[in-house]
């Protein structure tokens, strides 16, 4: 895993930050990576205000870079902890970081990297079912057909995701027409 010297140094800078603040900093970093928290929260945080802002910026950017590079290299929790041991960072922090990394690794990979990467889920198979709706507890005499469509998509790691949706006859007709156009496009090209 290649990291610039400044990034590696940023972890050793953590020694200048009081321990009580470490956890807050870590949760903000992972919050940003999981896209649950906006970066501006870091400026708003009361606990982090006590830290010199240049120092904070260096440590923050160093942490983000390390985590993303680690995810890209597919490091697991132990390998990351091992790697960090050589970087002169406080051991307690390394422990906290690795645990948080292990918990959120999959999710960050999915939300960030796979959407910007080039592997999309592949369509494997399709299942369908046609029902006739008679009534519900809210409304009676519906008397309409409905289709349930089930798509099986395979992710890069082999896991299968099911995508379910319903449609009525008109929507299905539109769908079939769109797909037929798509199929025809390839036939006319070759």
């Amino acid at each position, binding site marked *: 895993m290649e990291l610039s010297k400044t990034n590696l140094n940023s972890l050793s800078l953590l020694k200048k930050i009081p321990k009580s603040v470490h956890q807050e900093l870590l949760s903000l970093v992972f919050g940003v990576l999981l896209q649950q928290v906006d970066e501006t929260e870091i400026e708003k945080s009361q606990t982090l205000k006590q830290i010199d802002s240049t120092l904070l910026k260096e440590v923050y950017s160093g942490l983000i870079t390390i985590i993303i590079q680690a995810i890209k290299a597919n490091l697991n929790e132990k390998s990351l902890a091992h790697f960090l041991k050589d970087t002169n960072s406080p051991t307690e922090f390394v422990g906290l970081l690795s645990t948080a990394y292990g918990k959120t690794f999959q999710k960050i990979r999915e939300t960030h990297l796979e*959407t910007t990467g*080039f592997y*999309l*889920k*592949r*369509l*494997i*198979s*399709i299942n*369908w079912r*046609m029902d*006739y709706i*008679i009534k*519900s*507890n*809210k*409304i*009676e*005499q*519906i*008397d309409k*057909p409905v*289709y*349930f*469509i089930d*798509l099986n*998509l395979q992710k890069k790691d082999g896991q299968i995701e099911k*995508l*379910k*949706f*319903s*449609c*009525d*006859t008109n*929507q*299905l*007709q539109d*769908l*079939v027409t*769109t*797909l*037929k156009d*798509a*199929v025809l*496009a*390839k036939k006319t*090209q*070759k």
Partner: protein
Amino acid sequence: MVIIYFNNEQKEDLQFLQELSFEVGSKIVQVSIDFFKGNYNPKLLQNVSTKLNLPQLKVERCVYALSYLFTESSKLSLSKSDFLESVNAISPTKEIEECLLESYQKNREEMRRILSEMSLKLPSIDSLQWRLDVQISSRRTSNEAKPVYLLKLKTSDNRTVWFQADYNELESMTNQLEIALKESKSQHYKRIKKYIK
């Protein structure tokens, strides 16, 4: 023949309509239709009751009872005669009866539409967009020409799913869905439809 039954409380609330003049009564009916459509405004109820010089609680309960009447009759799709039979339970004046029937007939379709939106359903498909690309090379292979379809599916719960498919998969998906569509024109379906009616 389907009729709606009112419990005693509701009957009492609806009897309240009798005591009012036609204009006032029709205003209250209008309020209950709006109430059903989702325009519930407690201030409006207050204004209406003070303007008409009526106790607010009674007006409110009458509006609720009327909403029940309209909800059930739309749900069951009552015919004119069934509706009038149900309304007869509170022995309304001719004018009130006509006013209720007119409101029901005018608003029935919309009320049924609102009810079906509230019913149980799976997210439905909004749109499917596709793009045909040719994959030229990747990290592991180079100098190939593989056609790849990129697809974007949007569903009514605001989910967008991106996926890819190659030509064979797309063709088989199209074939399957065409078969599904043909089912709606099949003999079996027509038979079921006839029997359920």
